[in-house]
């Protein structure tokens, strides 16, 4: 049904999509995880309340999260160009993806940490644990199931956003769907890319759910 060239293009599209999704999730966590921990720690009822730091991060997280991704993508073009050297292609798309993901991840992490039983944290304090020890040995370990679920959801969202970036030449399956399916009316190619996106999404979700289940010792 498709010639070799088309198939090659689709395979390449899968690679690009995975590259964008996974790398932006990873980099998003590099920025978002410390931000989320900082939000938790500096919150009014946190381990080291600090109104100023909390409000600044809180404010920026809300601002970025309130901008629709497609608009953020366009707004960030100068920054993307400055970092990557070009504003199109999959590597360039990672910049807005990370900037969009980091505040979202920060919230997801903050929420996950908030679920940790305050009594357990109090017990750690009573044992003489430092704030750093409480974060690394209590919070991140006790919250790991929520953190993994959060990461799974985040990856799924970034997969969707990476496809959205196809509308402005972002590369990957979304790009193929827009160029062939939308501009050239090749519905078959569009359907293939959509099916592939669904399959990738399912795999991400399944891996995440299974990992969370395997690592959870709360219910057996």
């Amino acid at each position: 049904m498709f010639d070799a060239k088309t198939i090659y293009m689709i395979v390449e599209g899968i690679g690009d999509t995975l590259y964008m999704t996974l790398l932006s999730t990873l980099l998003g966590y590099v920025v978002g995880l410390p931000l989320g921990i900082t939000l938790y720690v500096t919150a009014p009822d946190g381990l080291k309340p600090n109104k100023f730091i909390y409000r600044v991060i809180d404010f920026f997280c809300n601002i970025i999260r309130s901008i629709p991704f497609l608009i953020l993508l366009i707004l960030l073009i100068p920054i993307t160009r400055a970092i990557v050297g070009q504003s199109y292609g999959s590597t360039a798309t990672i910049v807005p993806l990370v900037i969009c993901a980091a505040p979202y991840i920060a919230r997801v992490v903050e929420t996950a940490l908030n679920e940790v039983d305050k009594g357990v944290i109090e017990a750690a304090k009573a044992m003489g644990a430092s704030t750093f020890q409480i974060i690394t040995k209590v919070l991140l370990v006790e919250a790991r199931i929520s953190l993994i679920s959060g990461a799974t959801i985040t990856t799924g969202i970034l997969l969707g956003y990476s496809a959205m970036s196809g509308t402005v030449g972002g590369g990957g399956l979304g790009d193929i769907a827009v160029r062939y399916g939308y501009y050239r009316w090749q519905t078959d190619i569009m359907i293939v890319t959509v099916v592939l996106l669904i399959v990738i999404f399912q795999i991400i979700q399944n891996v995440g759910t299974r990992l969370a289940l395997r690592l959870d010792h709360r219910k057996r």
Partner: protein
Amino acid sequence: MSAIRLEHLTKKYEVDGQTVVALDDVSLSIDSGEIYGIIGMSGAGKSTLVRSVNFIEKPTEGRVLIDDVELAGLSEGELRKKRSEIGMIFQSFNLLEQRNVLSNVCFPLEIAGVKKKEAKEKARKLLKMVGLEDKEKAYPSQLSGGQKQRVAIARALATNPEILLCDEATSALDPKTTDSILALLKDINSRLGITIAVITHQMSVVKKICDRVAVIDKGRLVEEDTVEKLFETGEILEIFNNSGLAAAGGE
């Protein structure tokens, strides 16, 4: 020598712009090696009181002295060190759900920087003492309430503390399990000579294991005496009736 000395402790909170007095000029001293009960209704301030002993809650006024060292004068590092010398157990056990029993008992040692192998050896000894040597691989969710509290006791003793604080440690347990936990505490007290402060709203707990008892009502210390005396004269019942504690304390 007194292991714990509280002098004129006052704790005030701001809640919605209103000042709530949780502790009002409480002074008491707990002797080394005794089991000291602190009894009162919910909201009487006993939880705040016990949290002042290891400075998890800092009093607004007054002094806390542990082995004659004033906690307010310690640096943060020194305070953490001091806290590691005071064990604490809770009503809700507060075990780490994602760690197994052995790893839970090792936790305070891990924080203190003790080597893993050494920590495990120590933890196994303690688990044996609390009668859970066959449960080291189990996770807290697989244990009963009484077993969880035993793990918590083992964990609290890991750093060889001289003081053990029990915050409503038996309030979530059935009477039979309560008795076995109280027996364990009594045993620890007599074998290791650890000073134990027991916070409770149950008169039966005080009667069973405490040497002396303080009655806390509305943030104030209303009575302090030996358990024998308070129960003998029936004075405690009178105090309890006056403070509306009878329902909570009677069993």
